[in-house]
């Protein structure tokens, strides 16, 4: 009875949805059908491409070039026609450093601190996450009960917004938070996790792994499940133990997927901003300030908006991402279908 009713409701919903769809599309057709008579069938593909290409051109392609130009201008005006051309001055400013190992000796010390923080973050976040994701994927790939449930458990935080993730952990990590409560119950002293530079960086990394590992676990799990079972049977007939079959079957066949995961997570980690910004605000001091935060603050969040400097820093960031993307394309050739 109940299922019958819900089936009927579903049917109604589907009918209404398809009516709305047909109505909306016919409405748009009032524009597009006369166009076909105007330009002819042969040019219709361009008509179909037009809306996407317009937005794409205006907000992706054109800005890429504009960015390079803005990075070569100075002043605090927004519009390029009001900005004096200064050549490579912004880049020189970013690269004025007595000793590149010591951010304090640099003219833009905040930029180099953010570069160094991002480097540390990428190294440990990507490394830690690939390891944890691999271990989790291997566990989930075993013959376990409730696999669907456990897979969802690890995936759930991926869907949460960075702001929500940061607030959840800020609440846990604050001085009066539950983690310190547990520490005190165990007889230890409370720690100001977010007010100590090293602790803050550690937690920023842990929280980021927590939030994203589910996604990479899924990709690795798909990779594991695409390994044909016959290979394991063959290995065990040849007398391979479980460690041997892991080393000589699982690892080599999973390698392409591993590389994809490595590079995707690398590209993502280099651009980290939201979670860290809400969790620590880049602090204490500049201890967890990342490159994108530097760009955001230099261009948008200060009284003097130094767009040229922000653009120069983002051009450099773009170059780093370009290298990573080219790497991915080289690697991705062997694993098409996994990438987008």
């Amino acid at each position: 009875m109940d299922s019958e009713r819900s089936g009927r409701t579903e049917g109604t919903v589907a009918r209404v949805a398809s009516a709305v769809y047909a109505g909306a599309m016919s409405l748009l057709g009032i524009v597009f059908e006369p166009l076909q008579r105007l330009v002819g069938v042969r040019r219709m593909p361009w008509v179909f491409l037009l809306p996407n290409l317009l937005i794409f051109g205006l907000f992706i392609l054109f800005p890429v070039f504009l960015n390079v130009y803005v990075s070569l201008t100075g002043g605090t005006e927004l519009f390029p026609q009001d900005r004096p051309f200064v050549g490579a001055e912004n880049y020189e400013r970013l690269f004025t450093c007595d000793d590149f190992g010591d951010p304090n000796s640099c003219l833009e010390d905040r930029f180099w601190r953010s570069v160094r923080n991002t480097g540390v973050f990428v190294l440990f976040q990507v490394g830690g996450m690939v390891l944890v994701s691999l271990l989790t994927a291997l566990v989930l790939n075993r013959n376990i009960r409730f696999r669907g449930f456990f897979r969802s458990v690890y995936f759930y935080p991926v869907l949460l917004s960075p702001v929500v993730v940061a607030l959840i952990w800020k609440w846990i990590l604050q001085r009066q938070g539950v983690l310190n409560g547990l520490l005190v119950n165990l007889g230890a002293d409370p720690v100001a996790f977010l007010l100590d530079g090293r602790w803050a960086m550690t937690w920023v990394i842990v929280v980021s792994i927590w939030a994203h590992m589910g996604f990479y676990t899924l990709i690795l799990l798909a990779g594991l499940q695409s390994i044909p079972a016959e290979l394991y049977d063959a290995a065990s007939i040849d007398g391979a133990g479980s460690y041997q079959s892991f080393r000589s079957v699982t690892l080599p066949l999973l390698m392409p997927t591993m590389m994809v995961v490595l590079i995707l997570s690398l590209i993502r980690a280099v651009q980290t901003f939201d979670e860290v910004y809400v969790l620590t605000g880049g602090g204490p001091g500049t201890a967890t300030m990342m490159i994108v935060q530097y760009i955001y603050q230099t261009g948008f969040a200060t009284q003097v908006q130094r767009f040229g400097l922000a653009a120069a820093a983002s051009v450099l960031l773009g170059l780093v991402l370009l290298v990573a993307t080219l790497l991915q394309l080289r690697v991705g050739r062997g694993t098409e279908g996994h990438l987008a």
Partner: protein
Amino acid sequence: MSRLTAFLSRRRGRAGPDLTDWLTYAYLLVGVLVMFGPVLWLVLSSFKTQAGLVEFPPTLLPLSPVEVELEGYDEPLPLFEVRLEDGSTKRLAQVRRVGLEAQMVDPDDPGEIVRVPIADRTEVRALRLQVSNFTEPLRRFDFLTYLKNSVVVTVVATLITLVINSMAAFALSKYRFRGRNAVFLVILGTLMIPLSVVLVPVYLVITQIGWVNNLWGVIIPGAATPTGVFLLRQYMLTIPDELIDAARMDGASEWRIYWQVVLPLAAPAVAVLTIFSVMWRWNDFLWPLIVLTRSELFTLQVGLNAFQGELNVQWHYVLAMTVLTLLPITLVFSFLQRFITTGIASTGVKG
């Protein structure tokens, strides 16, 4: 060591549970705790009173002191569990506290005052959900405005993305024309250009159009996603051209072929893109943060961040609003989880 290696390897068909199985389930249970625990803690905390929130070390459940109203006293009195001199315990209400001594009365006999050392009494507390944490911010702050802005941005942006991306994908997969490969290559080439790399120039374009502090400024720039075009094109390539030729024979216009023949057949890919788009837009933070500076235009994420950044963080409201923010995504996920996880695993795309 061999145990560990056995744990790392894949097994199928075996006798009863061995050590590696125990390790597997232990790992999974710890995983459940680590992944769900923080969210659960947030939800539990969001129901606590302000006094309960600053308590340290914190209690697991939202507990509040129990109070009783007694004849002869204007204010409700807090209840305490008291250990009496003869060793028995009794529930007494505290009238007032004087130094190290508390003056208490028996609720059944409110006339007589008992004096008790404060060390011998413990507060009686019971589970109470502070629902006003949720209702207050809805009344006093712009939470509903933020929610409305987020819904508008997510719905409108997703609709626009679906329509223009599928149109472009249709053109790139179902027509042969000069320049097709060039267009596709350019789109592919920008697949990995994130907004964070072009913040300044896109802001410039938005300012020129007059979209600063306008929801269109948030909606439009991300609408022409290369990812979406790529995803839909790859799927549409698998739709047989004969169907299109047949429709053309029947005199259907190109627009009709697009929406009545090709798009319905591409429904699985459209569904995956819908989920991605909703996720991207609902969770988007950096770009709305830059474009929107007037608080009545804030999306949920920006509003939530502004609220938690205030000098006097009102955690009881922040926590409740965080719970409300993660609720829609959680509900969608619990209904569509199998679909979402397989969809993402097969495409490998994420925002």
